[in-house]
């Protein structure tokens, strides 16, 4: 699909020399990347590498040890709480679990942020919510409770909720994890179409290589606490970096070893 190129050069999110650790465990070491406006940027990498942590750092839910995160030139970690909340009205996040409010039905879930922040009359909120639900194909499920929906449907409702306030950026945390092929196809289509239609800046965090390469405009691959490769999907597929080839090809052993570090096998067995 031909994607409209935004001529504005300044990226929406810039991460400069970010390091972050939990206790002794270093998660990111001097990571720098930028998220261009109006495009789908993917961040890929093996599980457990801290991709979700990276999203939380972007949203200001966590504070880096060193380095900074700029959202539209504002340092999210230097903001006061009110300023941070103002910034968050311009971004939204699709959590891996969907994170729907379990005590509200689908309609109220999508309407929630609108009622809190928009100040619009209920009649208009109703129309906006129905339009968002129509966009994800779940207008018919408006009265259902989250526990009556399948995992894929929950994620679509969460997507409708994430775009309810028309944010500038949506962050997707593992949107394809654990989905059947049909739900996966639906989500791929939705993310691409919504990004184009609403001129959204999208950040997709995932390890589903084929899906990501099919929708992303630009991809960062992370491993070993840093970015090991970046480029358009075509550039990455052509790359000769061993670690990247292993990841994209899904090979069990390679630069990322199959075995977790352990002492000598023979010694372990024979005591």
């Amino acid at each position, binding site marked *: 699909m031909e994607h409209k190129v935004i001529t504005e050069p300044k990226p929406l999110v810039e991460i400069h020399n970010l390091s972050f650790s939990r206790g002794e465990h270093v998660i990111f070491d001097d990571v720098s990347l930028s998220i261009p406006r109006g495009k789908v940027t993917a961040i890929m990498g093996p599980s457990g590498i801290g991709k979700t942590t990276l999203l939380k750092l972007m949203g200001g*839910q966590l504070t880096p040890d060193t380095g900074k995160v700029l959202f539209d030139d504002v340092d999210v970690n230097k903001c006061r709480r009110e300023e941070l909340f103002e910034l*968050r009205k311009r971004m939204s996040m699709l*959590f891996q679990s969907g994170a729907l409010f379990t005590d509200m039905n689908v309609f109220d879930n999508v309407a929630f942020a609108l009622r809190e*922040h928009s100040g619009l009359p209920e009649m208009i909120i109703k129309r906006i919510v129905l339009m968002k639900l129509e966009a994800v194909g779940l207008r018919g499920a408006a009265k259902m409770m989250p526990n009556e929906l399948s995992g894929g449907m929950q994620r679509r409702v969460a997507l409708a909720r994430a775009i309810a306030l028309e944010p500038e950026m949506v962050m997707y945390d593992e949107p394809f994890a654990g989905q059947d092929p049909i739900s996966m196809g639906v989500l791929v289509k939705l993310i691409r179409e919504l990004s184009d239609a609403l001129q959204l800046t999208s950040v997709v965090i995932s390890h589903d290589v084929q899906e990501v390469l099919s929708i992303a405009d630009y991809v960062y691959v992370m491993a070993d606490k840093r970015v090991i490769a970046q480029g358009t999907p075509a550039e990455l597929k052509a790359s000769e970096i061993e670690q990247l080839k292993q990841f994209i090809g899904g090979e069990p052993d390679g630069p990322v070893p199959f075995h977790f570090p352990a002492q000598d096998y023979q010694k372990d067995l024979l005591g």
Partner: protein
Amino acid sequence: MSLLDKVANLGRSGIELIMGLGRAGLMLWGAIARKPRAKDFSLFVKQLYVVGVQSMVLIFVSGLFIGMVLALQGYNILVGFGTEESLGPMVALSLLRELGPVVTALLFAGRAGSALTAEIGLMKSTEQLSSLEMMAIDPLRQIIAPRFWAGVVSLPLLALIFTAVGIYGGHIVGVEWKGIDSGSFWSILQASVEWRQDIVNCLIKSIVFAVVVTWIALYRGYQVIPNPEGISKATTQTVVQSSLAVLALDFLLTALMFGR
């Protein structure tokens, strides 16, 4: 373990205790030190229903049985001294001064406190709290504050209901069953219960218990380790810690109120 390690462990748990108290204090401060909005009232009313109204049956039935048992045991003792007419004040004062606030708080910790912890813990583990944050809505204000106020308002009311029903239970046993004169049951009861000494103190006790039980329940939920084991542990901790806190505080308050 060497002596030095033991000292280090003691120090570590001391520091953890103080840090926990600090975090709990900050959570409560963040939740309630706000100018209320019109919307907060409807959240509060909803929680008042969940926390207070839904605990009513338990409180009502327990109050009735405790009042009846108290009257039966009291009657058997008092009748030996020929003072069974004093059954009314005995039941009423035991309930108002001790059993009403304390047993209600213990039942409340088991019924509502554990539910609050589990609910908030699950909200945390399903990332509902994070998602509120990302929607620029403060979870302390949206989730913690209405539940806190609902607990603080409903527990004293539940304690009064418990006490009233308990006295009625005492009346059933003493008057209907054991045949004490109804007029003297009520009139001696009325003469010996004082507004300031008994009823106001009952309310003070239950407000203190309400703050402590609700606070512990909310904090345990908010700090939960988001997995099934963490939630089950937090729920247990809520019941154990708030029950112990209620019993210890009860002694302290009783000493202050009646120790002179």
